[in-house]
C-alpha cells in the first residue's frame, strides 16, 4: 500500500459538512439539533453519517429540547454536540447555563446569521457578545473558538471536544454563514474511538455510590463556593488562548479581526503592504478566553489598532480593554450580511493609520 500524501487526503467540503465530519472523527457519540439556516447541513450530514459511525442522531422539536438532550446525553457520559444559528443560540441560553452549572462537556456550533430578531440568513458576527460574555444566565462562561478557514473549522471542532472534556464545560465553535456555506479543501485526521464514560457520569449506579448531575446549590455559601470553583476553572482556561499574528512584527497599524472578517482583512493587509503601508493582522482564534496579552504586547509597537467585524462593534470592546488606552483603537464594521471588500478595507486601514498618526 502506498503512503498517502497530504494532498491525496484532501477533500473539498462545505464548512458545515467539514465540522460534522470532524465531530465524527473526534468520536462524537450523539448529535441533537433543530434545522435552521445557514447551518442545516450539519444536521443533514449527521443524519446521513453518524448512525453508521456508531452514534446517535436525533432531530429535536426545538433548540430548547436539543440543548437539553445534549445535557442528558453528556450527563450520561457521551461525547455530544449540537449546532444551530443565532436565534437558536438564544433559545439554547437556558440549557447552556445548566450545562455550565452542572459542569457538563459538550460542543455547540453557532453559525451566526444577521440579527436582531429574525434578521436574515446572511453571514454575520453580531453574536460575539452573546457567545463570549455569558453562557446563559448566572456568571457562566463557555470557551469559544472562532475558525477562519474550513480546515481550521475542522481542526478546532476536534480540539473543542478535547477542551470540553478537559474543563468539563461547553465549548462553542463560533462561525458565520460564509464559513458554513463555502467550500475549501480540508484534510481530516484518522477517526478516534469513542471515549469511555467519565466516572462522574450517571450511567446507573450498579452497586456503587449514586451520582448526581445538578446545578442547584440552595445555600448561598455553597453556591458561592461553586462559583469560585467555576471562576478558578475559567482562569485555568486562559491556557487555551490562541491567536495568529500576520505581518505584525513591524506593523504600524494592527488590524484586529476574527473568523471570516479576518480573511478579508488578510487580503487588505497584503494590498497595504504592496503599497508600502505597514499593516498587520492580529487574529483571535479563541475569542473566549480573549488573547488580551497579544493585544497588550502589540500596543507596545503599533501606532493604533483597527478592529474590523461584521457587527456594530463587539470584539472591539475586548480589544480596548486589552490595549487599555496605550494606543488609539478604531472600529469599522458592516452589518446585516454586508461584507467589506479588500479595497474598502484598505481605505479604512489607511484612514485609521492617518488618524492615529496625527
Amino acid at each position, binding site marked *: 500500500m502506498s503512503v498517502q500524501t497530504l494532498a491525496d487526503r484532501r477533500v473539498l467540503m462545505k464548512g458545515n459538512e467539514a465540522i460534522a465530519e470532524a465531530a465524527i472523527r473526534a468520536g462524537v457519540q450523539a448529535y441533537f439539533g433543530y434545522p435552521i439556516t445557514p447551518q442545516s447541513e450539519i444536521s443533514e450530514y449527521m443524519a446521513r453519517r453518524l448512525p453508521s459511525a456508531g452514534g446517535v442522531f436525533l432531530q429535536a*422539536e426545538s433548540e430548547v429540547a436539543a440543548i*437539553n438532550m445534549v445535557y442528558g446525553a*453528556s*450527563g450520561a457520559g457521551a461525547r455530544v454536540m449540537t449546532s444551530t444559528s443565532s436565534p437558536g443560540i438564544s433559545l439554547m441560553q437556558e440549557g447552556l447555563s445548566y450545562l455550565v452549572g452542572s459542569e457538563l462537556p459538550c460542543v455547540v456550533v453557532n453559525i451566526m446569521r444577521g440579527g436582531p430578531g429574525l434578521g436574515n440568513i446572511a453571514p454575520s458576527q453580531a453574536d460575539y457578545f452573546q457567545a463570549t460574555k455569558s453562557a446563559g444566565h448566572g456568571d457562566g462562561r463557555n470557551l469559544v473558538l472562532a475558525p477562519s478557514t474550513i480546515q481550521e473549522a475542522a481542526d478546532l471542532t476536534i480540539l473543542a471536544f478535547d477542551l470540553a472534556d478537559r474543563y468539563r464545560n461547553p465549548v462553542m465553535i463560533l462561525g458565520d454563514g460564509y464559513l458554513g456555506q463555502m467550500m475549501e479543501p480540508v484534510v481530516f485526521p484518522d477517526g478516534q474511538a469513542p471515549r469511555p464514560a467519565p466516572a462522574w457520569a450517571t450511567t*446507573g*449506579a450498579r452497586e456503587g455510590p*449514586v451520582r448526581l*448531575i445538578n446545578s442547584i446549590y440552595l445555600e448561598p455559601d455553597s453556591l458561592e463556593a461553586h462559583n469560585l470553583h467555576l471562576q478558578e476553572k475559567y482562569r485555568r482556561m486562559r491556557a487555551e488562548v490562541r491567536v495568529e499574528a500576520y505581518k505584525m512584527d513591524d506593523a504600524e497599524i494592527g488590524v484586529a479581526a476574527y473568523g471570516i472578517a479576518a480573511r478579508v482583512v488578510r487580503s487588505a493587509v497584503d494590498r497595504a503592504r504592496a503599497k508600502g503601508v505597514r499593516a498587520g493582522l492580529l487574529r483571535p482564534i479563541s475569542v473566549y478566553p480573549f488573547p488580551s496579552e497579544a493585544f497588550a504586547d502589540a500596543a507596545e509597537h503599533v501606532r493604533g489598532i483597527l478592529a474590523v467585524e461584521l457587527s456594530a462593534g463587539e470584539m472591539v470592546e475586548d480589544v480596548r480593554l486589552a490595549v487599555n488606552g496605550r494606543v488609539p483603537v478604531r472600529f469599522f464594521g458592516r452589518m446585516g450580511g454586508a461584507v467589506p471588500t479588500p479595497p474598502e478595507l484598505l481605505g479604512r486601514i489607511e484612514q485609521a493609520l492617518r488618524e492615529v498618526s496625527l
Partner: protein
Amino acid sequence: MKQVFARPRTLAETPFTYCPGCTHGVAHRLVAEAIDDLGVRGRTIGVASVGCSVFSYNFFNLDFQQAAHGRAPAVATGIKRVLPDRVVFTYQGDGDLAAIGTAEIVHAANRGEPITVIFVNNAVYGMTGGQMAPTTLLGMRTTTTPFGRDPRLAGYPIHVVELLSSLGGVAYLARVALSGVAQIHKAKKAIRRAFQVQLDGKGFSLVEVLSTCPVTWGMQPVEALRWLEEHMIPAFPLGEFVTPETRERA
C-alpha cells in the same frame, strides 16, 4: 420474626422534606417499590424536574440528573438514546410537565421514547406558593386565580393523559389517585406496569398521579384527600387509557 415492611432499597435513608400531608412521599415510595420489584436499581437513572419535587434526587438511592423547568423529557431522551439498555424515568409536576414543558412531553411521547414519566398532578404550583397550574380546576381558587379559575380568562384544565393518547409512540398511559389504600394499590400496579413497558421496549409510558397539596389548598391533610376524591377524580377520570394490548388492537 418475619419482616413484613421495610424501606425499599431504591429509597435513600433521607427523611422526606415535603409538607405534612403531601402525597409526594407516597408517590416516591411507589416508584422505589416498582424499581426494587423489577430489580433494576443499579441501571436506573432518574431525572428530577423543577417544582416541589426539585430535590427528589435526595430521596432516591439512584443516579440522577436535575433538569431545567419542563425539560426533563428532553434530558431523559438524551440519556436513553446514548444508554438504551438503562431504565430512565422523569418525575414531574403539573406546572413543569403541562405548562412550561408541554412541547418536550408531547414530542418525547410522540417519538415513543422508551422512558417512564411519573406525572404528579395536584392542580396547583406548590413550590412557588399556590399559583394556578394548567390542571387547576374550573372555579378553583389559587393565588393567581383569587376569584376562581375562569375559563374565559385562564382556559381549562389540561387532561394530559387524554391529550397524549392520540400519539403513535405512546405504549402505556394511566391515571391513578393517591386518595386511599385501595387507590394507592392501583397506583402501585400502574407505576410498576409503566416501568415494565419500558423494560419490554414497547415505547413511551406515563402515569398521571392525582395528588394533594394541603398547604396551598388551605386544607387539613385528611380533608385534602377527601377533596381529591370529590373534585379531582370526577374532573380527571382514573384508569388505563393506553396499554400495549390496546395499541396492538388499534
